[in-house]
């Protein structure tokens, strides 16, 4: 049986709910009582049946996998945590959902998220914010008892993992939406290289940035699920072709072959780049301090730490918001209340000579404030007058950001159209080149939900996560101790495009004794 969570008392939703079918209204009323695990608000709908562990033995048999609510499922409504899509249950499953089901995985429910994936704190949801479960899992806090953010936009997925409500969860990451909640909730979260996991059936926020990834208690579990979903999909035109996948996997495998100490937690021969631009003044001092402890530990275990510079990092935030919002304004145009999205009757004074006024009524009521804001920003960036200065400029900077990364990695970027400097080798043996980059995932631990996260400050955090998104690189956040307030922190490993296996294995090794 599917249990569906009700949307928080939201005037818009109440207005929309009057149009809902009685069946859905009934389900809204019978939703779980807000106690126990449901208190975290991690799931927006879930099944009550436990996973069936009797049947044949498949890689994910008996394992519950939660799915972010912007990934299409035919067994559950797929609402993107938006008032607009309360009535939408797709007739189809996303490719990743099909793959998990085929591998024996038990799809246990849909997780709360920021509306259409837009947000860093999971507060832009029609179901209300996700609460960070860390507090309860450690038996309460010494300093305060205030609810904290689970991070966003895949906050429900991170919380479901942190509260042991599933084996692993799928999230999506457009600018940090998997890594940040993983960091806040003290779990591992992996955004694969762009194009490695199919986006077919994922409701697009920004097509050129969206990645489906995995959150779990540890990197080993992430690998179990990632191995299932990293498949070429002919239905996704941005899916990386087979030959490039083979090339990258082979390269990671041969590098890992060289790093024999990893299985026993040793990092001899591993070169880790520390990007100096990833320590903004806004970063909490305890984050930097804790990160230093981690670096010292890695050094003692044989890693070579290399300070590197990615000079365009400071431009990534504005670049990201122009591109992501522009794509969002385009992708969300289909939600117009005609086919998708609940239709709101326009008022009687509406000037009907302009058809746009009819669309406006539904779109203004259906989208939440953050989504509206980004659609407006993106719309502006695409107008003829602004296009060159915003969109095209941002596209140019995006290329520079990629070049920055390519300059520090040992692995060549196989997607780059430029020929490699040493044409015979996929690798660069320059001593200054690194296997991976390592940096704190967030500038702080999870913020309190009562703290207003408004204005530019709310976006500042994204400076740590958006560069890897813009460059399409694999990025893994793993738990890395605690901040001064005893709340969890995460650190991010970022690899060259296609070095997903290398990133995951290094992450796993870092988790071993830390």
């Amino acid at each position: 049986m599917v249990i569906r969570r009700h949307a928080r008392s939201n005037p818009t939703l109440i207005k929309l709910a009057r149009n809902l079918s009685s069946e859905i209204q009934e389900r809204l009323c019978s939703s779980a009582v807000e106690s126990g695990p449901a208190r975290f608000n991690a799931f927006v709908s879930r099944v009550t049946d436990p996973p069936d562990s009797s049947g044949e033995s498949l890689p994910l048999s008996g394992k519950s996998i939660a799915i972010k609510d912007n990934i299409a499922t035919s067994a559950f409504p797929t609402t993107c945590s938006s008032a607009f899509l309360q009535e939408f249950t797709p007739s189809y499953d996303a490719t990743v959902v099909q793959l998990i089901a085929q591998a024996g995985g038990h799809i246990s429910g849909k997780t709360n998220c920021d509306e259409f994936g837009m947000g860093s704190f999971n507060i832009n949801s029609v179901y209300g914010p996700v609460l960070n479960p860390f507090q309860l899992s450690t038996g309460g806090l010494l300093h305060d008892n205030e609810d904290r953010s689970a991070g966003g936009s895949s906050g429900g997925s991170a919380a479901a993992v942190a509260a042991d409500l599933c084996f692993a969860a799928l999230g999506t990451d457009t600018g940090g939406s998997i890594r940040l909640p993983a960091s806040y909730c003290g779990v591992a979260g992996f955004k694969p290289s762009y194009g490695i996991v199919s986006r077919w059936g994922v409701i697009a926020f920004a097509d050129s940035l969206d990645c489906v990834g995995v959150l779990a208690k540890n990197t080993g579990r992430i690998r179990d699920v990632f191995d299932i979903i990293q498949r070429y999909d002919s239905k996704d035109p941005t899916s990386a072709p087979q030959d490039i996948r083979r090339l990258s996997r082979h390269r990671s495998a041969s590098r890992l072959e060289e790093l024999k100490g990893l299985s026993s937690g040793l990092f001899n021969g591993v070169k880790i780049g520390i990007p100096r631009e990833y320590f903004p003044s806004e970063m909490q001092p305890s984050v930097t301090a804790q990160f230093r402890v981690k670096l010292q530990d890695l050094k003692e275990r044989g890693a070579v730490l290399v300070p590197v510079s990615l000079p365009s990092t400071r431009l990534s935030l504005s670049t990201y918001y122009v591109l992501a919002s522009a794509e969002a304004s385009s992708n969300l145009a289909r939600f117009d209340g005609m086919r998708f999205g609940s239709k709101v009757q326009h008022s009687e004074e509406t000037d009907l000579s302009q058809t746009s006024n009819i669309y406006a009524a539904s779109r203004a009521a259906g989208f939440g404030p953050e989504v509206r804001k980004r659609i407006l920003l993106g719309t502006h960036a695409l107008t003829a007058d602004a296009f060159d200065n915003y969109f095209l400029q941002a596209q140019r900077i995006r290329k520079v950001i990629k070049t920055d990364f390519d300059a520090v990695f040992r692995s060549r970027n196989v997607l780059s159209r430029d020929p490699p400097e040493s044409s015979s080798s996929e690798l660069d043996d320059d001593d200054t080149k690194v296997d991976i980059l390592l940096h704190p995932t967030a500038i702080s631990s999870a913020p309190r939900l009562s703290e207003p996260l408004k204005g530019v400050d709310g976006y500042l955090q994204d400076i740590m996560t958006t560069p890897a998104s813009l460059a399409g690189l694999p990025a893994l956040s793993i738990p890395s101790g605690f901040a001064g307030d005893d709340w969890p922190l995460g650190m991010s490993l970022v690899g060259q495009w296609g070095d997903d296996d290398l990133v995951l294995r290094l992450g796993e090794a870092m988790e071993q004794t830390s």
Partner: protein
Amino acid sequence: MIGRLLAAQCPQVQQRMLSSFAQGGRATWPGWETIIGIEVHSQIKSRQKLFSTSLNSVDEAPNSRVSLFDAAFPGTLPKLNRKCVDLAIRTALGLNASVQHRSAFDRKHYFYHDLPSGYQITQSYAPIALGGILHLDKVDRTVRIKQVQLEQDTGKTTFSESLNRTQVDLNRAGAGLMEIVSEPDMRTPEEAVAYIRTLQALLRSVGASDGNMEQGSLRCDVNVSVNKAGEPWGTRCEIKNLNSTKSVQAAIACEVDRQIKLLQSGSVVSQETRGFDEHRMTTFKLRSKEDAPEYRYMPDPNLPPLILTEADIDSVRQSMPELPHKTAARLESVYGLVPRDIQVLMSVGSGSNVGYDGEVGPGNAVEYFEAVAKGRDPKVVVNWITQELVAQLGRRNENFDQTPVSAQQLGDLIDLVQDGTITGTSAKTVIRHMFNTQTSSSTLISELVDTLGLRSQAVTDDTLQKLCEQAVQELPIEADLVRKGNDKVLMKMVGKVMKLSKGTADAKIARAALQDMLSS
């Protein structure tokens, strides 16, 4: 129809057009120059749509050929149909345009109920082909082609009076279109029509499109400006959605008239998008330049750039059917056909014989002709095709591919006539019989001739003699007149003999026999 409406609503235009037709088909506005450019939207004749695997619709029930992607279901993604790309390359090569090694897809945004995703995927910034030429033989004008771009068609909106509601059919949504943009190189409405006709023939011959304006598979937007001779070009207006060559011609004429009148009265032409009212024979304002919609073009992030190597383009070139002017030249040089026959062969069934995905369609009259003409006199063959087959098809309102007479059968039939086994009249009877009874292509012509009793040998000299005597008996008055030297009546008697022989008699021999009989 248009002519009558012209007379009623647009007397000046009509007068001018009529007088110009009298002078050889050229509309003229003495002292003024007219500059015309045309954007053609042509549906690509592919089995599947441009970015989805749903089949292109011809006449299917509304909304029966719609995939999740066509209806813009959230989470669905486009997948480029390479067949559409190949057909666009064929078109570009036919237009002598330069196929781009790298082109890209963009989104053009606007809200409308027959555009489910809120944007149309098109090629605004980097079209698949640039720069080309199309020579219009009929008016001897060379038109430069600016570009060819691939794009999606929209759904179809109809308003139901009875239900008082707008209805949307998404069968067409996402179908592949080519937008072919000309430079402003045409100077008269007649040249505009010649351009469209020539382009239609090209699209059909390369198998890229049906090019049928009546069925909406080819639609035109026309840009028109006027200026006093010797002065710089005027401000142009675009007339949208013209659905026949007649309305193209009439809309240009009316628009030129309107602009000249404006300028003559001392006012100015402002840049506008206009529509054409066929009933009132006027163009009308749709929107001004200031109201031009903001389409917010954006590179489509789902579709990687379309990379075409020289080898890709070459392989399309190798598989290309012959272009119309080459076919015409070959029919003339190899078979010695006259232009009128060439034109009939090339226009018969065009538009209905374009196969899907560039495959050769059924019923190509030129191919049929060449098959029959192998080892036969081409002039005799072309006469049988253009005069008998085409006439029969025309009478039945059928397409060329519906002829029941195969090339093999027509060849056999012509051979029988040539060697005197049957008469020409009998052969026509055979063809009519084949149409009436829809014989199969395996039917042997010689057996058919025997079954119908049409073999000329059946009429021996004795039999003919008897038939002539019978004719003289049955037409005594006519016989007398012939005896008195009235040759005109002789033909009536020959006709009688032919009728009595059921067409198997040779008319010449019958005439000689009758003359013999009655002159003694």
